[in-house]
């Protein structure tokens, strides 16, 4: 008989029903419950978020992982990245590594790169956040190609990586900050018609660049689902983000199978960061 405490998460419910229907013995049910307990309770869900200051790491973490009022305030020249553990529900923990982006500073970048090498291999999901409205994300492409992807490939965790283009809501404001037609329609939480065209053009440029740089569409690059476009502030297109997490590596499914659906996209009103 399965104890009630083992049926608290969605994954437990699915397994309980499947094992019951499959006429699996009580002893084997206990083994499965023990193993799933080890998988989701004894080991936190580890996420690393990499990004330059201002790309929206905090809002991303608040929206996607429901970290109420989390603020990313990495000190300049941070030399140590501390694992921050957030209790989610019923013993399931989210472990977060908030990491600075490389920034063309030889000394700091070497230090940060070393941190990436140490930390990324132990993470279930690695999110590299980019500003969608950046005029040129060539430097991000270089960092991904020369630093992040090689680390991921070497440690066989490329499937854990998500390239997250945040702030699609502000693409219009960077074209003409005085044009109200290029601002987000806050009332309906959708882009205006003019902004839709601007977003399409920008995302088209971004995907062209990613293809030209072999970051997607090549054996060395990412799979299409690993690239997501969203607005953390407005909870826009978080479904693609959740799907990318769910598909990530061997343990991405744990997030929606535990508290993901309850947490994602619920906290963006806080607009932290």
């Amino acid at each position, binding site marked *: 008989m399965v104890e009630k405490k083992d049926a608290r998460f*969605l994954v437990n419910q699915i397994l309980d029903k499947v094992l019951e229907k499959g006429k699996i013995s009580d002893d084997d049910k206990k*083994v*499965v419950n023990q*193993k799933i307990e080890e998988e989701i309770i004894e080991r936190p869900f580890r996420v690393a978020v990499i990004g330059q200051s201002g790309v929206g790491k905090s809002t991303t973490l608040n929206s996607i992982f429901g970290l109420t009022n989390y603020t990313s305030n990495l000190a300049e020249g941070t030399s140590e990245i501390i694992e921050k553990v957030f209790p989610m529900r019923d013993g399931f923990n989210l472990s977060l590594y908030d990491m600075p982006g490389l920034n063309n500073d030889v000394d700091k970048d070497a230090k940060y790169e070393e941190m990436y090498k140490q930390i990324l291999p132990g993470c279930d999901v690695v999110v590299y956040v980019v500003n969608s409205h950046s005029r040129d994300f060539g430097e991000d492409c270089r960092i991904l190609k020369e630093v992040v992807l090689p680390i991921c490939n070497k440690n066989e965790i490329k499937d854990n990586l998500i390239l997250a283009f945040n702030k*699609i809501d502000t693409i219009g404001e960077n074209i003409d900050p005085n044009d109200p037609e290029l601002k987000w329609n806050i009332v309906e939480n959708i882009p205006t018609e003019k902004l839709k065209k601007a*977003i*399409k053009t920008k995302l088209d440029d971004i995907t062209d660049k990613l293809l030209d740089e072999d970051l997607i569409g090549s054996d060395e690059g990412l799979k299409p689902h690993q690239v997501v476009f969203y607005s953390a502030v407005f909870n826009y297109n*978080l479904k693609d983000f*959740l799907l990318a997490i769910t598909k990530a590596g061997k343990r991405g499914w744990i997030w929606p199978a535990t508290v993901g659906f309850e947490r994602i*996209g619920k906290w963006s009103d806080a607009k932290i960061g």
Partner: protein
Amino acid sequence: MTGVEQAEFDKLNSEQKEEYRYQQRKHPNWDHKKLMVKVGFSEKVDEIVDKNGGDVDPNDRDVMEELVKGVGNWLKRTLPRIWNGVKELFSNILTSIVNGVINFFDEILSQIF
């Protein structure tokens, strides 16, 4: 185009074929794989701007499918003997999700079993 590539191209609908040819003219250095990825992204971008934001639907079929796959793969890796006893059930759940028979996890848990 190789035979396999031609077969992939033939499976595209007319709009996708048009987009493929447009991108081929625009990026003559791109191979078939890149052109196919670009066609997929062009559709994805259209979807992104045309849908509303808001909270993620907990009954989303794509996420459900990947979640069930993840649980199944975990069981297969961790306890292969037990997996062998239930793999057909997992397969049935996935088929039901993909075919749209199941819309909600509650239904997975109540109707299928």
